[in-house]
């Protein structure tokens, strides 16, 4: 869906956005947090190869932490931040300054306070990304607080995880903090109109650069 130039431009843009989010989070948790998005793709979930390890989170069974944030009107969609639950636990522990050695993968003991921390982290991150997309497209966005949920995903659930959303922007996300690399994924499900306006804006920018 995206050519190399568009992909590079989008990757650069989102890395600037998440850089700002990382600074804000670092200040809150009083630890240096580096956020990295090495790859951005615009895909249709139905076209993704289940064997592609980068998309494990969509196809493997297990507990998943998912935060979702709806935004609209002109640029419409829903953004999801997803972590396998054990990664979410590591992230919460590190933010709270607690050791993460005793995480039991099959038994994620995420407590109320952990979920609150993850809600805030995802709020900062998704706000930064969606907000800056709004700035990039020069439109005013309205969005609410993210909803968070812990879900157990079975294989059949995977098919309906993102139902109704045809194309999605996938941001492979990596939190580097306290010698730990916590990886999750940000998925932004966009309406066709939003995709068109995003692509048009990027093309205009690239054309101006090369023109």
């Amino acid at each position, binding site marked *: 869906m995206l050519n190399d130039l568009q992909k590079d431009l989008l990757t650069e843009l989102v890395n600037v956005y998440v850089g700002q989010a990382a600074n804000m989070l670092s200040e*809150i948790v009083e630890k240096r947090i580096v956020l990295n998005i090495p790859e951005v793709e615009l895909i249709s979930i139905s076209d993704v190869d289940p064997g592609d390890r980068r998309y494990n989170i969509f196809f493997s069974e297990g507990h998943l932490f998912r935060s979702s944030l709806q935004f609209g009107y002109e640029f419409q969609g829903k953004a999801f931040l997803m972590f396998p639950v054990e990664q979410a636990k590591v992230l919460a522990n590190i933010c709270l300054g607690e050791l993460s050695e005793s995480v039991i993968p099959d038994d994620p003991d995420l407590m109320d306070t952990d979920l609150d921390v993850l809600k805030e982290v995802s*709020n900062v991150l998704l706000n930064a990304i969606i*907000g800056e997309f709004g700035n990039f497209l020069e439109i005013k966005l309205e969005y609410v607080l993210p909803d968070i949920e812990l879900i157990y995903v079975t294989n059949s659930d995977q098919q309906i995880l993102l139902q109704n959303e045809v194309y999605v922007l996938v941001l492979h996300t990596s939190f580097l903090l306290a010698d730990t690399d916590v990886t999750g994924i940000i998925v932004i499900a966009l309406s066709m109109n939003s995709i068109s306006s995003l692509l048009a804006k990027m093309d205009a920018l690239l054309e101006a650069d090369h023109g």
Partner: protein
Amino acid sequence: MDNLISQALNKVHMGIMIVDRQLKVVVWNGWLERLTGKNKEDVVGLNLLEVCPRFKSNVYLNILQNALYHGQSRFCSSALHKAFILPKEGEDEHLLRQNMNVDPLYLEDRSYALIQISDMTNVNTRVYKLKNLIKELETEYAKIKISEKISKHLSLHDPLTGLPNRLAYNDRLAWAISNAQRNHGKLAIMFVDADGFKQVNDTYGHDVGDQVLLEMAKRLSETVPSTDTVARLGGDEFIILSHLKDDRDAEVIAKRVEAAFSTHFKIAGNYINLSISIGISLFPKHGQEPSELLRQADGAMYKIKKNGKNGYGIYEPEHV
């Protein structure tokens, strides 16, 4: 209706405050009055930073700016921020925990920020206690695991020499036989008994006797390859389980073991000479059953004892 809404606003179990773009307080509800001791009449119209000094920090100024100018909602967790609105003087603020939601509001062409504060002190205390309980349980679990490991070791090892005991040996022998059956392997079972150990005990006492057994265990362990097993069956009886390439290797090993006892033991200033008698049975040549092979090795050892001790012998059918 406005009066009803106003009453409800003062009754809700959370702090509700609205500030305008200049951060001037427009709404200050009853919950906040009760917490801070500051009345609505005294607070409305004041700058938020004067009323709640915590908001002077850049983090919170940014959050308010983002709500007022960019329409962004923000959630702040008590786990990371502790508290936002402090209680009236004289009350302990250290245990206080609050969550905060900041949302944009619009009236005509003006924007406001709605700040909602929820008391999370009880939740945090409960989580804190629960986490401590989990930590304690983990520590206890680790202790139980260690003691399980110790008792397993004790049940399978001889306390004096640290060698595997009869139980462990039987287990290893059964495993080695089933493995050898699959891979066409060969094994030697060597029954080793000290000659005249009773005299050592009678002459020098049990402490020296124990030292002799320790030295025996050491010499036997050093003589056989690390892949073989030396076990103590009890008293002065030891047993070796050797993996062989050829049946003839059993004699090579037996000679090596014998040689290990050719020098005297020096224990507590005493020079003690101790020879050994070794009986050998072979798998698969002499049988398939562990108990049968042990009995045959014992029989071969008994024959050596009978014929003057200090030597080795391989089982022959007439031994039993």
